[in-house]
């Protein structure tokens, strides 16, 4: 049943649809000064059918998710808000899953309801309401899965957390779900020399070694800091000062779950100076105080007198993109001086990039040395993808990285403008990592080649790509992972605004820890486009990986997108998407399969 507050969100979307269809923002006047109102509405309505999963809570339910961005700009001020809402209907009953843990089915559940345990590490990862399900790949054949659907306004007691010996270490806390709430809010003042923000903001210092809090839509991540941030540019001098609490995107679309804000406290200071109009030298430091403490996990436990966890990451950087007319240089060093679980955690990180320009070629030499440089996770990170540091990986953004904390690697990339209609690029990386500490050692090779061919005055194109990756366990002399990637994107212009396009990727994979035999996975899409109004596509996604949690391996789908205006679109999708691990910039999470239908509306005023 859709709650009344969510009906309100639907009404809001409907009202917005009645506005003029040409997106140029809305202009007002206050005392002769322009005031701009900008609205972007995004609505997602989906019906989930049988996706082949063994988890019954993913089957046969509906969802309505909505985001409304609103901005008011007046002179040097910008006020922005974002409202999120979510509702799920016809949701499966937790009691429908068998076998189930009866301790977790009462409302509130018994305090000894078992928490979620990572089957690989045995580490407790989530203290939410859970139920048991059979999983042959998990220890003892049993996995603990969080029950996802919490009716709006329901308060559910979190189960107590257990350590590896089964002792209770946490007394629990209340959870709740709002159907409609304010997700982000910010007021910014900006002029030539200063920018000050009160409220939610993103931040990135250097190349992400010490702090990078950005939007990563591909993983469903949109974390900001809620607090204050000041940026100063004055001549050759620059500075950034900030402090705030982490504010997660609370509605996780992929898992239909509510995620609590971590409320970790972060503060940072960065200063830089530009010398000789070409060399920028900077220094920064970040201090973090996690809300959920591993040293004293029981909130309010006065008997625990262990020192609180903290994160301290200082660093320095040099940025000279035009050191000479033919050479650019970037270098950054960061130090990890954390304390996690009463133990000091120290590490080092160095990243460097040298770019050389020679005629029609550009050479990029990158190197990274991460010495026990641990990722800084949010203290509430149920899917392992909420991080505050994102050190560069050197690989393609979608590459699944096994280890980016203890590694020495370098890569050389070449981009060539062969002719006006032909470009090529190639990259080769080699490295050595220690995924399980100093006694382990893996070697890796990652290489790829791509081309861009254009014709019909650039309206038609073909972009082929070929990639290869291999990781080898040098100690055990065994294969860790092997990947051959074939990808492409092509378009043929047919005239009168019509074009036919195809895109796809096919990965040939071997990874003994996931499967005893190799497998293939990929997507193939064909589209007919009628500029600027319509896009119709057919798709086929597949995986040959035999996985006990999914019985469907082939997914067919069709989609139609209507561009109502250049900035407003309505899309309809029917069919399936395959499940799998998705990685962006070394941060990965598992996405479930989708089988059903969905409607997506993007409206901009």
């Amino acid at each position, binding site marked *: 049943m859709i709650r009344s507050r969510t009906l309100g*969100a639907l*009404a*809001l979307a409907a009202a917005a649809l009645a506005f*003029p*269809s*040409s*997106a*140029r*923002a*809305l*202009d*007002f006047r206050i005392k002769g000064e322009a005031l*701009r*109102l*900008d609205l972007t509405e995004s609505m997602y309505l989906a019906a989930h059918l049988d996706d082949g999963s063994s988890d019954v809570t993913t089957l046969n339910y509906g969802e309505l998710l909505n985001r*409304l961005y609103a901005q008011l700009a007046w002179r040097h001020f*910008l006020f922005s808000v974002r*409202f999120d809402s979510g509702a799920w209907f016809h949701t499966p009953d937790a009691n429908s899953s068998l076998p189930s843990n009866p301790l977790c089915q009462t409302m509130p559940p018994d305090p000894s309801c078992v928490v979620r345990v990572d089957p690989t590490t045995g580490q407790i990862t989530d203290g939410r309401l859970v139920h048991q399900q059979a999983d042959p790949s998990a220890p003892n054949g049993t996995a603990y899965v969080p029950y996802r659907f919490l009716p709006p306004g329901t308060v559910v007691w979190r189960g107590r957390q257990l350590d590896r010996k089964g002792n209770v270490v946490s007394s629990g806390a209340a959870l709740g779900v709002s159907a*409609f*709430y*304010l997700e982000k809010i910010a007021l910014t003042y900006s002029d030539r020399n200063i920018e000050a923000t009160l409220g939610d903001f993103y*931040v*990135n210092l*250097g190349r*992400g070694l010490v702090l990078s809090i950005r*939007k*990563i*839509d591909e993983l469903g991540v949109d974390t900001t800091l809620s607090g204050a941030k000041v940026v100063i*540019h004055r001549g050759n001098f620059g500075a950034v000062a900030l402090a705030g609490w982490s*504010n997660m995107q609370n509605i996780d679309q992929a898992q239909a779950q509510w995620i609590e*804000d971590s409320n970790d406290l972060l503060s940072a200071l960065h200063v830089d100076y*530009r010398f000789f109009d070409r060399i*920028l030298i900077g220094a920064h430091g970040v201090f973090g105080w996690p809300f959920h403490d591993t040293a004293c996990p029981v909130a309010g436990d006065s008997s625990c007198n262990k020192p609180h966890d903290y994160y301290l990451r200082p660093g320095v950087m040099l*940025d000279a*993109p*035009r050191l000479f007319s033919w050479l650019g240089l*970037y270098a950054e060093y960061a130090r990890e001086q954390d304390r996690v679980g009463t133990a000091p955690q120290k590490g080092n990180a160095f990243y460097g990039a040298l770019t050389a320009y020679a005629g029609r070629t*550009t050479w*990029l030499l990158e190197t990274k040395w991460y010495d026990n440089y641990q990722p800084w996770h949010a203290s509430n990170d149920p899917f392992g993808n909420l991080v505050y540091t*994102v050190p560069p*990986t050197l690989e393609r*953004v979608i590459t699944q990285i096994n280890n980016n904390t203890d590694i020495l690697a370098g890569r050389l990339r070449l*981009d060539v*403008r062969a002719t006006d209609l032909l470009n090529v690029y190639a990259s080769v990386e080699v490295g050595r990592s220690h995924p399980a500490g100093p006694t382990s050692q893996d070697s890796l090779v990652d290489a790829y080649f791509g081309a*861009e061919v254009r014709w019909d005055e650039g*309206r038609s194109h073909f972009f082929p790509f070929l990639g290869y990756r291999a990781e080898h366990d040098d100690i055990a002399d065994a294969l860790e992972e092997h990947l051959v990637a074939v990808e492409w994107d092509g*378009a043929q*212009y047919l005239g009168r*605004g019509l074009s036919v396009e195809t*895109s796809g990727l096919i990965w040939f994979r071997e990874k003994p820890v996931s499967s005893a035999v190799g497998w293939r996975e990929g997507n193939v899409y064909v589209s007919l*486009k009628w*500029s*600027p109004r319509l*896009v119709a596509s057919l798709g086929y996604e597949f995986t040959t990986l035999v996985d006990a949690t999914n019985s469907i391996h082939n997914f067919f789908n069709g989609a139609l997108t209507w*561009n109502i205006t*250049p*900035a407003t679109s309505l899309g309809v999708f029917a069919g399936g998407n395959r499940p799998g691990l998705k990685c962006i*910039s*070394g941060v990965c999470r598992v996405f479930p399969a989708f089988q059903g239908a969905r409607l997506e509306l993007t409206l*901009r005023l």
Partner: protein
Amino acid sequence: MRRLTVPLALALASCAPSTANGPGAQSPSESVALGAAASDFTLKDIDGRSVRLSDYAGQVVLLDFWATWCVPCEAEIPHLEELYEQNKSRGFVVLGISMDGPETIANVVGFARRLNLNFPMLLDEETRVTGIYNPKRTAPLSILIDRAGRIVRVRQGYSAGDENLVAADVQSALAVK
């Protein structure tokens, strides 16, 4: 984060615009009407220099949000370069705004040189400007700003043939003195 009632949101949505706009017009022959003022911002370009939107006051500016990992952007951007070269002497500029994060930003220069791009290429690693103009982080997304600093067109995505519509919008904006 916080709970708010629906009426506030509905009130925001019901604010009336001061400019009268008819149904969406796609015909290139129509002149582009005036829109709302574009917010100023400062970003660094690929040479490390600070670039401010207001530095181009009096010119027609096309903001293009793109990324090296975006294939439609790769298909569209050469057309923008051609449009820039044809019209820069008339007071037109394209500002490419890369949404690449720290993990792919090193590829931006090679990408720009590979495609022989000569218009200013700005780096928005923090997605701060993206948050103002492109909160959904759509790629590609273009925003056309006229000589008076007003947003006159927002366009998302790219299909072959869209470049004709973009060119027509630019010509209309350039024709307004």
